[in-house]
């Protein structure tokens, strides 16, 4: 390890890094703007200047940019000396020449990296006497607010948006001191990662519109570690709350999962806890069909009334935590517990699980995925289904660039140089899908096939890797690319609904492992706890049909809208067989209308829960704030139900932490969930860990409109976190309990490096969740029959679902901004098929009783029809279904609601 001298002191440091990250790792305060730990160095802002000396005799030295200077043995630098400090101060003064003094009304204020760096460099007195230039801002859609006057031209936004995330509609425009970051025309930022600009921008150019409109400063936000409920990826989030409202969701760093970035579904898709209709009180349905609220005593009585001595059945939920599901499963008995998924989905997940467990290929984290040097995606439009995984793949295709760079001895952090060197040379990514995908722009090849043909192709690739001859050019090309790689990765999932496709993916990965490659195999999962449910029900799962025949008298439905999974007719049928329904949910779903008793659950920001991600990583979400009114966490309602049922095994449970150890005693894999986070008895320096930063203000006055007495602090009996600003906020507190990041002088999210041992590496107090599958054993599944090759049928079209980041999941469309982004569902046809039907773009098409607007799309396989999955108007449609299509008579294009906040701009 090289030794460098900083301000006269010698340090032994890691080789290969640059001076900036090295100094930061040494705990020094060296200001910077354009460098980003995930994006490397370009040397634009010139803020991280230090003086470097050639040798001990050199007394003059020269100013170098720390971010652009490699660590070398014996390097001598001066960080705090006058010359370097004066230079850095003048850089900030130059940046401030045009920066508005609007901090008091800026949504970045209080967590602004520019503020921090200005203070850090000591710039105070302004010498520039000229006028400031001003810009026109752009309308960038419902999620992001634009304020160009604040821009300091660090180029981070376009580097993230375009270079890192592959976005195309944000660019640096104009030149000299008129450089402008915007779109070529006003309009919605299209990238699914646009929201990351909020955190990437070191000042307030790009801000979160929902926060701007419902503003609270960072220091007034109460926050707790959480996990995104938007999909199965399990990104770590940091929701912030005040006055009982979710104000915003920020990224919570986890080096193995989401790193520094979230997708927009995750960032903006949580506002349903504020916006969507919520239930505040338990209620009973009266004879007239209306619900009447119950007080606590009445509720208790009702519960007992409903279930004491009755035969119970339960439907769990892949969007509820593992603990609540486990409780329900034990309460009703495994044989009458449905995981919350229909049978088809359940079987696909069991199959995925079995493949992951039995494959010699590694089930990769995102960090592993980024290291893949050849990738095959089978049947998934990852950007829509597991967006963060797609972002990881965008990094993996750059491994070829890093290989080229290594030949020239360029360090990986030399971002611009490596992009210039590699140009469009990428590691191979092959995508097999039913239509175009958002990763096509970086793909070496894409193959448009319906699901059955995807599975057939996968089987052929696997056979070819095993040495079977093939005359198919696609098969050979994919085989050759995968075999040429050291760390090939195969990704598939349940989106295509094909068991044979999962088998094919596993077969390819296994063949690659047999061929001596460090193969990786990953499957997406649809919801935040889908895999947890699969684990929970791997030995026993009651299908919806078997529930009908179970003889149960009471059905308990945990946080599940059955109408998204079953037709109304089938829900009715189930309703007729089971006389009493109890619904527990935070949202007012259609399913609750079928229930006799409705219990208001806490939302994801109000309850503790563990979710198992697609990687098999159990991660703990903590409540950000206590639930209001009579809302209670699902697991607490289930304990109340257990007491009402007189279930002696369950009534002894007291804490959240008791659930898994007590109930999963015989299951070592589920026991692993306990490793996801420290339990409620954990203390840091003997203290609980505060959710509120120490500058949290107005605590005694926040409720003064109701009562002038200082309200009692809520107590959190179930976790090591406190609803308070008191406690220990030590930098080495466990990552799973990192309720906010802040460090003296570093008020912005850039303070994160103070919590990392190595920049971009694991957090100091490690534990980024617990990988469960490594210890799991499961029997191998029998291979699914190989499907017939696709042949088009006259007058019928094979439906193939298309997923949308906004709109295909249950929750994101419940927030205003994402709902606007979701728009309405479309049907997709190949141009020839549209022509044969006499249809044009924008026409209405009727199928299965619904009418959808047509999009003509050359990527649609002829003879098949794509449809937007998961939209209210398409819930009845299933991938793989053959349907006739007809022209919708009297079709009127539905108006599009946009620009919900246009008036703010005018």
């Amino acid at each position, binding site marked *: 390890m090289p030794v460098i001298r900083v301000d006269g002191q010698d340090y032994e440091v890691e080789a290969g890094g640059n001076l900036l990250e090295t100094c930061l790792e040494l705990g020094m305060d060296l200001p910077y703007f354009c460098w980003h730990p995930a994006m490397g160095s*370009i*040397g*634009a*802002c*010139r*803020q991280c*200047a230090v003086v470097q000396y050639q040798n001990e005799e050199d007394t003059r030295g*020269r*100013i*170098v940019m720390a971010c*652009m200077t490699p660590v070398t043995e014996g390097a001598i630098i001066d960080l705090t000396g006058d010359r370097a400090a004066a*230079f850095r101060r*003048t*850089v900030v003064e*130059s*940046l401030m*020449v*045009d920066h508005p003094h609007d901090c008091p009304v800026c949504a970045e204020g209080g967590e602004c990296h520019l503020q921090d760096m200005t203070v850090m460099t000591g710039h105070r007195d302004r*010498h*520039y*006497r*000229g006028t400031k230039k001003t810009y026109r801002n752009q309308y960038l859609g419902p999620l992001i607010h634009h304020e160009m006057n604040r821009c*300091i*031209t660090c*180029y981070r936004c376009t580097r993230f948006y375009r270079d890192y995330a592959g976005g195309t509609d944000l660019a*640096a425009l*104009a*030149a*000299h*001191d*008129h*450089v402008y970051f915007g779109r070529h025309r006003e309009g919605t930022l299209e990238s699914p990662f646009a929201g990351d600009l909020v955190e990437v921008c070191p000042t307030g150019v790009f801000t979160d519109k929902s926060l701007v409109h419902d503003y609270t400063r960072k220091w007034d936000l109460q926050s707790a570690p959480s996990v995104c409920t938007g999909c199965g990826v399990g990104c770590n989030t940091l929701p912030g709350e005040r006055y009982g409202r979710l104000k915003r969701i920020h990224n919570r760093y986890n080096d193995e999962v989401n790193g520094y970035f979230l997708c927009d579904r995750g960032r903006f898709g949580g506002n349903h806890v504020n916006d969507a209709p919520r239930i505040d009180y338990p209620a009973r349905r009266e004879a007239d069909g209306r619900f009447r609220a119950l007080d606590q005593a009445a509720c208790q009585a009702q519960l007992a009334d409903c279930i004491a001595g009755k035969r119970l059945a339960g439907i769990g939920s892949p969007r509820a935590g593992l603990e609540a599901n486990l409780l329900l499963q034990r309460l009703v008995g495994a044989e009458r517990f449905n995981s919350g998924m229909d049978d088809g989905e359940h079987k696909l997940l069991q199959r995925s699980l079995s493949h992951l467990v039995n494959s010699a290929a590694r089930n990769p984290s995102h960090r592993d995925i980024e290291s893949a040097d050849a990738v095959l995606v089978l049947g998934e439009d990852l950007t829509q289904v597991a967006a963060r995984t797609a972002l990881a793949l965008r990094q993996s295709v750059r491994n070829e660039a890093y290989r*080229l760079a290594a*030949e*020239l001895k*360029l360090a990986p952090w*030399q971002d*611009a*140089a490596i992009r*210039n*060197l*590699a*140009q469009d*040379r990428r590691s191979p990514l092959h995508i097999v899908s039913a239509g175009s995908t958002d990763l096509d722009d970086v793909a070496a090849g894409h193959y448009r096939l319906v699901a059955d043909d995807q599975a057939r192709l996968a089987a052929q690739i696997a056979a070819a890797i095993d040495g079977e001859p093939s005359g198919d050019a696609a098969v050979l090309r994919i085989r050759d690319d995968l075999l040429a790689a050291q760390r090939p990765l195969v990704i598939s999932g349940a989106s295509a609904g094909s068991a044979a496709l999962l088998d094919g993916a596993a077969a390819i990965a296994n063949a690659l492992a047999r061929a001596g490659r460090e193969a990786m195999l990953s499957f997406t999962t649809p919801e935040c706890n889908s895999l947890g449910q699969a684990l929970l029900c791997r030995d026993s799962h009651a299908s919806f049909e078997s529930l009908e025949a179970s003889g149960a008298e009471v059905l308990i439905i945990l946080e599940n809208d059955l109408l998204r999974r079953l037709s109304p007719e089938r829900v009715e049928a189930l309703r007729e067989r089971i006389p009493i329904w109890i619904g527990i949910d935070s949202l007012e779903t259609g399913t609750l209308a079928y229930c006799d008793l409705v219990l208001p659950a806490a939302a994801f920001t109000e309850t503790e829960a563990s979710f198992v991600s697609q990687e098999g990583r159990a991660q703990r979400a903590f409540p950000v704030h206590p639930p209001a009114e009579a809302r209670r966490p699902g697991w607490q309602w289930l304990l109340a139900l257990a007491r009402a049922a007189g279930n002696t095994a369950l009534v002894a449970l007291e804490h959240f932490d008791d659930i898994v150890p007590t109930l999963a005693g015989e299951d070592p894999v589920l026991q692993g969930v306990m490793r996801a986070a420290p339990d409620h008895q954990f203390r840091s320096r003997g203290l609980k860990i505060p959710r509120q930063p120490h500058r949290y203000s107005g605590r005694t006055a926040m409720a003064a409109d109701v009562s002038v007495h200082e309200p009692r602090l809520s107590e959190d009996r179930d976790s090591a976190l406190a609803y308070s600003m008191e406690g220990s906020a030590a930098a080495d507190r466990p990552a799973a309990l990192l309720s906010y990041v802040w460090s003296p002088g570093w008020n912005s999210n850039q303070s994160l490096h103070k919590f990392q041992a190595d920049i971009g590496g694991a957090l100091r107090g490690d534990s980024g969740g617990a990988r469960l599958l490594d210890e799991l054993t499961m029997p191998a599944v029998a291979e699914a029959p190989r499907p017939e090759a696709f042949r088009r049928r006259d007058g019928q079209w094979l439906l193939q679902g298309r997923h949308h980041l906004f709109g295909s999941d249950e929750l994101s469309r419940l927030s205003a901004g994402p709902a606007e982004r979701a728009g309405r569902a479309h049907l997709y046809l190949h141009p020839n098929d549209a022509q044969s039907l006499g249809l044009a773009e924008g026409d209405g098409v009727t199928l299965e009783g619904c009418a959808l607007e047509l999009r003509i799309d050359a990527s649609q396989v002829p003879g098949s029809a794509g449809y937007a999955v998961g939209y209210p108007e398409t819930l009845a449609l299933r991938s793989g279904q053959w349907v006739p299509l007809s022209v919708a008579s009297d079709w009127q294009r539905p108006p599009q609601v946009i620009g919900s906040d246009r008036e703010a701009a005018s």
Partner: protein
Amino acid sequence: MSELPLTRNVRADRSPTDLAAYEANGGYGGLRRAMAGLAPGDCLDIVKDSGLRGRGGAGFPTGMKWSFVPMENVSPGHKYLICNADEMEPGTFKDRLLLECDPHQLIEGMILAAYTIGADVAYIFIRAEYLKAAQLLREAIAEAKAKNYLGRDILGSGYHLEMHVHASAGRYICGEETALISSLEGKRANPRAKPPFPQVSGLWGRPTIVNNVETLCNIPHIIERGPEWFQGLGLGGDAGTKLYGVSGRVKNPGCWELPIGTPVREILEDRAGGMEDGYQLRGFLPGGGSTDFLVDEHLDLAMDYETIGKAGSRMGTGTMIILDDRTCPVGFVKNLIEFFAQESCGFCTPCRDGLPWNAQVLDDIEQGRGQLEDMDTLEQHVSYIGAIGNTHCALAPGAMEPLQSALKYFRDDFLRHIEERTCPYREVH
């Protein structure tokens, strides 16, 4: 008078030399010699031995630059030679002469340079406003192609080269070689950090050499006549001839090829005819708008890289801009700083935001709104912006050169503006 190879085909009326005339005067002799029997390594040795230094301003030894291009174990793909004909340095008008009067000389030089480094594609990056030159070059390339000086299997040597003209869309920064490469790739002309140097990762990530017009025009003569001949052309330590120019209030502004190392006084008085009547010399920028002022005491210095460098300036492009006694030095510097601020690519902070700030201070002083502490700000800017390495490329440090030397030689003028709250040259001018 010694030989003047670069301008031997330049006529008084500046009419272009066509292929026939060029050949008649021995043109393409260097190429024929190389194709008949010189290996690329031989050519490289000749150019190295000649002592030719880049004529674009920086004066880097040309042969050494070429020697950094990898010749063995190169991954398959193109190598590129680029001629930098983006002449936009204020006060510089030398390359235009060579482009408009003798395009084949440049083309021959480029073919030889490309051959030496193993490039198979060559570009001439020419500034947008040089319309006539661009047209002449396109015609000349077609002529050369017809005679198999370009294209496949040049003169039966087995060597292939295609050549294209790219006309810029106008940006001074394109003259910086890495910015030029960005621009040639069809992108915003932001300069690139070095390393990696273009010689290993340049145009489209491939090995690339960028040379100035005048540099390349020397090559045919060096290859044909040899390094000793070329070294014999110079007067002092440097080899060859140089295009020198003078603009400003002199009797006979113009551009002349002279032995490199010709004394400043000789250029100024013998060639440019001395100052216009009624004007006195106060100082001069020896080599374009981004070189430090020199003054009277420097008139007897030789115009070569080392001598001018020792005097505290740079020979730069060799085209002098004369500051006379009736022109305001503050206004002079302000004009230059405004140019550089306007032409900043906007990439790095000191240049993008520092130069406009500096221009605003100079404007205040020039308009009589200056304050004494503005002098400190200007000095501070010189150290903040003026050192290579403080900024992403050399544009802003270059911009500071006239200012820093003006603060040294014409400090009283700045102070008079501040004290008198007006420009003392205003009535005179």
